[in-house]
C-alpha cells in the first residue's frame, strides 16, 4: 500500500470528505510525526507503536571495495518500535488465517461504555 492508496481508501470510506481533505489528513499525520522527530521529540501511539530517534556516534568505517579507512560522521536516525497490539496482530497473520475477533466489531466497546456508571450520577 502506498500513501496515495491510503488516501484513496480514506476518501472512499468517508464519502463526505473531499479528496483534497483526505490528502491533507494523511499528509498532516506524517508531517507532524516528522516534525516531532526533527525536534528530537518522541511520538507514541498506543497499540500502534512509537517513533523516536537514536544517536549514532562517529566511527571509522571502511570502503568495502578498496579497504580504505573513511571517517563516518555521527548522525541521528529515526526509529520505530511496533506496539504490543500491532506486533501481535502481525504475528497472528503469520499463523494461518487470522482467527481472533475481527476489528470490525464495535459492539463490546459500546456496551462497556454504556455500563460504566456516570461519575455525576
Amino acid at each position, binding site marked *: 500500500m502506498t500513501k496515495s492508496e491510503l488516501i484513496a481508501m480514506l476518501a472512499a470510506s468517508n464519502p463526505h*470528505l473531499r479528496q483534497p481533505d483526505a490528502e491533507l489528513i494523511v499528509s498532516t499525520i506524517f508531517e507532524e*510525526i*516528522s516534525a516531532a522527530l526533527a525536534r528530537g521529540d518522541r511520538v507514541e501511539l498506543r497499540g500502534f507503536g512509537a517513533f523516536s530517534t537514536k544517536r549514532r556516534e562517529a566511527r571509522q568505517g571502511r570502503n568495502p571495495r578498496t579497504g580504505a579507512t573513511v571517517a563516518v560522521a555521527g548522525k541521528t536516525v529515526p526509529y*520505530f518500535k511496533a506496539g504490543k497490539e500491532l*506486533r501481535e496482530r502481525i*504475528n497472528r497473520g503469520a499463523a494461518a488465517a487470522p482467527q481472533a475477533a475481527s476489528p470490525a466489531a464495535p459492539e463490546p466497546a459500546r456496551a462497556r461504555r454504556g455500563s460504566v456508571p456516570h461519575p455525576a450520577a
Partner: protein
Amino acid sequence: MNTVTRAHLAEAIYAQVGLSRNESAALLETVLERIAAALEAGEPVKIAAFGTFSVRQKGQRIGRNPKTGVEVPILPRRVLTFRPSQVLKARINGQPLPRAGRDGGA
C-alpha cells in the same frame, strides 16, 4: 524531550482541515487502522518522504533462556520493520533534502 500523542496529531488535523475535533480523532484512527490492516495482511506500506513499513518472516531458531540456560525453540514469526526514507533521515539531521528521484525508504 516531549512526547507527541494521538491527541496532538488529532489536534493538528483539526487545525489543518477544519473538521470537528471528534471527527479528526476518528479519521486519525481510521488511517492507523488501515496501515495496521495492510501490515497484518503482510503487505508493505510505503509513505513517500517518510518511510516504508514492511513485514519480515523469521524462521525458527534455537534460543536460550538467559537466566536458566535452558534451550527453547523460538517459533517462526513475523516482525515489523520500518525503513526511514532518505528525506526523513536528512531532515532529522538538519541536512538539505537529497535530490529527488532516488529515495531509498519510500
